[in-house]
């Protein structure tokens, strides 16, 4: 039986694609699935450092495509979950050094050995985007609730509808204090505009930055709100009916101030 390939994309840069790929990948692996993460951001790889696997890279995606090594030689196994592997991007090549056909072949090959193949897409809608999308069966679009990422998400959703079909949406970095003050688009506002299925909401959480510092994605921190949000998303991808809770205000700036004085 062949696995399922999902591309994580956004249009706008810096909205959380790599963070999402790492956390959903670990989430699916935690639930026992065989997972391959593919860093398709050739020239600007970051999935390795976010996953904490940067010191174990020998070969990379372009080496595989060029036949300089076997696919399995380039896969970096995650010691935390042996059935989770990462295929790093090359840091010294260009997006144009591979073609969509080559990415499709690579993904097909990975799907033979893994239940899920998650592809971390570069920002933009050029060749890097086309490569990342080429081998995918479906797409997840990540946005933050700001005007320019939402606008770019709409453009990407349009492009995806022509090729892969309807993507699902993750709204990342929601700040419920701002939402309550009416200073940030809420989930309904974003859905009214983008008209796609919502896969999940992730709060803005300083734990994500700490997790990045450590190379230990936030889903491995059972107490973090964002980690729990990523776990719910992973379970939804596995077909579990996990309701999307209203994010509460805790964890925002006011809450952090409160935490200085009270044990919570």
């Amino acid at each position, binding site marked *: 039986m062949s696995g399922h390939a999902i591309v994580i994309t956004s249009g706008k840069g810096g909205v959380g694609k790599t963070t999402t790929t790492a956390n959903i990948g670990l989430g699916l692996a935690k639930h026992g699935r065989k997972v391959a993460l593919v860093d398709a951001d050739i020239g600007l790889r970051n999935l390795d450092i976010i996953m904490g696997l940067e*010191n174990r890279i020998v070969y990379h995606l372009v080496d595989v495509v060029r036949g300089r090594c076997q696919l399995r030689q380039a896969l970096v196994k995650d010691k935390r979950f042996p059935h989770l592997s990462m295929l790093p991007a090359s*840091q*010294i090549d260009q997006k144009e050094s591979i073609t969509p056909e080559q990415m499709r072949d690579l993904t097909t090959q990975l799907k033979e050995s893994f239940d899920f193949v998650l592809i971390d897409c570069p920002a933009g809608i050029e060749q890097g985007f086309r490569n990342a999308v080429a081998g995918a069966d479906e797409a997840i679009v990540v946005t933050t609730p700001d005007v320019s990422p939402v606008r770019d998400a709409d453009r990407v959703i349009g492009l995806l509808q022509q090729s892969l079909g309807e993507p699902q949406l993750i709204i990342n970095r929601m700040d419920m204090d701002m939402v309550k003050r009416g200073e940030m688009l809420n989930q309904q506002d974003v859905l009214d505009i983008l008209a796609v299925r919502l896969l999940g909401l992730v709060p803005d959480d300083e734990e994500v930055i700490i997790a990045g*510092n*450590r190379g230990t994605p936030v889903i491995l921190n059972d107490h973090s709100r964002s980690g729990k949000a990523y776990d719910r998303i992973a379970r939804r991808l596995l077909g579990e009916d996990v309701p999307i809770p209203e994010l509460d205000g805790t964890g925002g700036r006011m809450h*952090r101030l409160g*935490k*200085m004085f009270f044990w919570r």
Partner: protein
Amino acid sequence: MSWGTIVQRLFGTKGSKDEAKGRLQIVLAYDRLGLSVEQIEALHKDILETISRHISIDTDPGLTLKGKK
């Protein structure tokens, strides 16, 4: 400032930023060199040869530097 930060301040434990800095320094050292796998392996071989001229080392392939471990 979170509760965790207060605990860190009180007990003198370190935050994660030093870890971030150390990891970045190593990663960037390699990124800036822009070496290919062949070049890293060749460099590694040369280093091992040089060292082994002065001290006896085990050149078992299990010990060879695969990537940057």
